[in-house]
């Protein structure tokens, strides 16, 4: 009898909670102009639009090019107008909700999946809203996915069911897997067909990354590259040059030694450097030394068949970190990602470590957090350090937009129209101004929005210069192969082993390469030629 009583309690509690949840959901929906019913109505609208669109295919294809250029022109005006207000706003991580704009009647809907979240995800939605209001022919529904990994996984599984988005944002290291999905349409084909002069204006380093076998497969969207962050205040105190851009390993080591401070009890109060075991940087350092990561030619002409990072050149960066850690001494935060990365970032912005290595995309986060932390950290940026005499350069990271073969010809055209629009200098300037990624177009630097951004964040210019100093070639284009995720894990495991337990760097890299090659062989054998 008592049992049934407590069951009643439980069910009562559940009902209350559910009611509360419903109330919250409804209350929020009525409070804002975003109707909960949009989804249902847009669904109906899409099917209607799709059927009408099918009839008008031929007429539409001929007009897209003309329509798109006028659309671009109008958005250019819109961007600069909006840009003035956005550039003035602080890049604080506080987020305000960005509701999607409603779909105009008679427009053709396509779906975009993207993996950026938080404040960056909001900017994606804002950018999509701009596109949707810039023209009325197409409507892009942007659907946020949990992260890059989830987007790629969902994409891979969804291939079986046939319902893919028309455009999908996939991270850099997913490139080979996207090509192998055989469900993508290279943007180069659209560019060639429309005889557009876009490719020559894309930053060479960015273009090279997404070019495979001479074809630009996807349109780069958000790109970044790694830099060395340092605390200018600490540098000045130690008598170090804060304007110096190119640092060799030895110079960084000497600086870190000078920067390390201990209190009377011998406890370190300021570390010269703080870092994580980050495979992305390992790959960068190979490129900086003009070495290949995968054979042949980083998989740029034919499929990568062997990973060749386990060389003495490859060992240089882990060895440098090990030396920093043991002798400076520096602080090591474990393998990159999650809480370890946060600990590293936190250590840097609070002045506990004077140097760290990370993506330029983190610049604004560092600046605002350093300000909130109030420990007097003045964020400076330099090139990623290199061994003496290195002649290579950095590789870009980030993500790009892929057009899929999903849907009608008309929807593919819509996808291309949207992707083309995102690559416009104005869009790119807006994107860069609001996120901290590079604009992918050289012409974007002439847009006022971008000029304002560079004036506000002079550190960003150093990253741009570093990227432009990168010589073109296979090493700096970066490697592409199907099992990048697990290879990164293997490399990070090897570095972590070296930094925590010690061992022979070459041996650890050999093991990582052996394991990675087995995984790569397995992947390659399953991909149909």
């Amino acid at each position, binding site marked *: 009898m008592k049992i049934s009583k407590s069951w009643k309690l439980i069910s009562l509690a559940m009902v209350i909670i559910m009611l509360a949840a419903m109330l919250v959901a409804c209350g929020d929906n009525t409070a804002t102009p975003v109707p909960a019913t949009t989804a249902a109505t847009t669904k109906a609208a899409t099917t209607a639009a799709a059927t009408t669109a099918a009839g008008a295919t031929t007429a539409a294809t001929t007009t897209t090019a003309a329509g798109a250029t006028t659309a671009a022109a109008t958005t250019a005006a819109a961007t600069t107008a909006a840009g003035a207000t956005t550039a003035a706003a602080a890049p604080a991580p506080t987020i305000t909700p960005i509701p999607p704009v409603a779909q105009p009647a008679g427009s053709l809907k396509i779906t975009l999946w993207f993996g950026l979240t938080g404040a*960056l995800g909001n900017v994606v939605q804002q950018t999509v809203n701009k596109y949707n209001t810039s023209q009325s022919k197409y409507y892009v529904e942007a659907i946020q996915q949990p992260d890059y990994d989830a987007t790629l996984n969902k994409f891979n599984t969804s291939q079986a069911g046939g319902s893919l988005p028309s455009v999908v944002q996939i991270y850099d290291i997913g490139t080979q897997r996207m090509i192998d999905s055989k469900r993508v349409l290279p943007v180069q084909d659209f560019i060639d067909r429309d005889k557009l002069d876009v490719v020559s204006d894309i930053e060479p380093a960015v273009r090279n990354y997404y070019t495979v076998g001479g074809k630009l497969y996807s349109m780069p969207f958000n790109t970044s590259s790694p830099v060395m962050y340092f605390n200018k205040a600490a540098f000045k105190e130690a008598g170090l040059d804060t304007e110096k851009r190119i640092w060799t390993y030895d110079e960084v080591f000497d600086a870190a030694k000078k920067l390390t401070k201990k209190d009377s009890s011998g406890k370190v109060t300021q570390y010269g450097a703080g870092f994580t075991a980050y495979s992305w940087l390992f790959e960068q350092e190979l490129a900086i030394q003009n070495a290949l990561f995968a054979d042949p030619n980083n998989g740029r002409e034919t499929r990568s068949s062997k990973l060749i990072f386990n060389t003495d050149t490859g060992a240089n960066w882990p060895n440098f970190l090990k030396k920093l850690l043991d002798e400076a001494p520096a602080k090591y935060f474990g393998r990159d990602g999650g809480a370890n990365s946060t600990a590293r970032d936190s250590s840097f912005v609070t002045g506990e470590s004077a140097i760290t290595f990370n993506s330029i995309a983190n610049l604004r986060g560092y600046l605002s957090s350093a300000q909130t932390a109030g420990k007097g950290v003045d964020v400076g940026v330099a090139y990623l350090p290199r061994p003496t005499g290195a002649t290579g350069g950095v590789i870009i990271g980030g993500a790009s937009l892929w057009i899929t073969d999903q849907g009608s010809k008309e929807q593919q055209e819509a996808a291309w129209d949207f992707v083309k629009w995102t690559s416009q200098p104005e869009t790119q300037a807006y994107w860069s101004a609001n996120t901290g990624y590079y604009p992918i177009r050289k012409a974007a630097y002439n847009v006022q929005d971008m000029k304002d951004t560079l004036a506000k964040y002079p550190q960003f210019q150093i990253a741009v210069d570093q990227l432009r100093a990168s010589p073109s070639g296979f090493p700096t284009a970066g490697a592409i192969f199907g099992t990048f995720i697990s290879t990164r894990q293997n490399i990070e495991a090897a570095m972590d082993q070296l930094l925590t337990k010690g061992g022979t760097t070459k041996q650890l890299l050999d093991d990582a390469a052996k394991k990675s090659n087995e995984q790569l062989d397995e992947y390659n054998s399953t991909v149909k030629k």
Partner: protein
Amino acid sequence: MSAQTGLVKTDSYYGSFQAIRLIKKVATYILLVAASLIVLFPLFFSFSLALQGPTIAPTLLPDFSKLDFSAFGDAFKIEKNLGRWILNSFVVSLLVTLGQLFTSSLAAYALATLNFPGKNIFFFIILGTLMIPWESTIITNYLTISNWGWKDSYQGLVVPFLSTGFGIFLMRQYFMTIPRDLYEAAIIDGCGRTRYLWSILLPLSRPALGTLAVYAFLNTWNQYYWPLLVIDAPEWRTTQVGITVFRSSEIAVFNLQMAATIIVMLPTLLLLVFGQRQLVRGLTAGALKG
């Protein structure tokens, strides 16, 4: 002898006995408090992170002079669907739990009590499904669900999980422990098979049903990959997929993320607080006979 020693026992003897008992009690409580602090640490820490405002340099304890509660309100402001997601998770978990209790007890009833040809073969087939990893059936399930047009719907989230080999096995094993005499006596008294299941077997099997219900509910609540796959429209997401929007790419700002996590966790936590007594009773009821 014992009577004599009993005579020597003085007040102080009993006093020291009580003192020992008290010390034991205090020690137990200290241990319990320490253990619960350790267990609750993640909760405290996420609460602490939620109150620290948008920073990438969080500390263990927040600055008590400037606690920032805005993250909790912001979570709802930023994500209109948050309430809906909690509702979705509840509906889905509840339906799956009820469905599994229903199918498992019926199947187990047949396997444990009734006699029919091929019973053991059926049982082994059901056991065999336990050996098939869920991941290997994802694609086929996905194809089925999407061909039926069940993406973005409750049935798409619920139906693939309505029966489980584990549940059937668990219930069958429990039903086997209930004496067959009971069944025979009931039948002789004119009780039908369905009525026997409903009025006798199931009430006696509350512990097993409770265990299965908790297991099914939590498993469904925590699902990630399946909801991610079959749901495209944001309003149909479940909490586990939904809360990932609060994570920010590139830079880790924890306050919103933690606030959202706590909001999402609250319903299950309340359920546990209210249902704990029942749960503990359910898990231990079979431990002692009589």
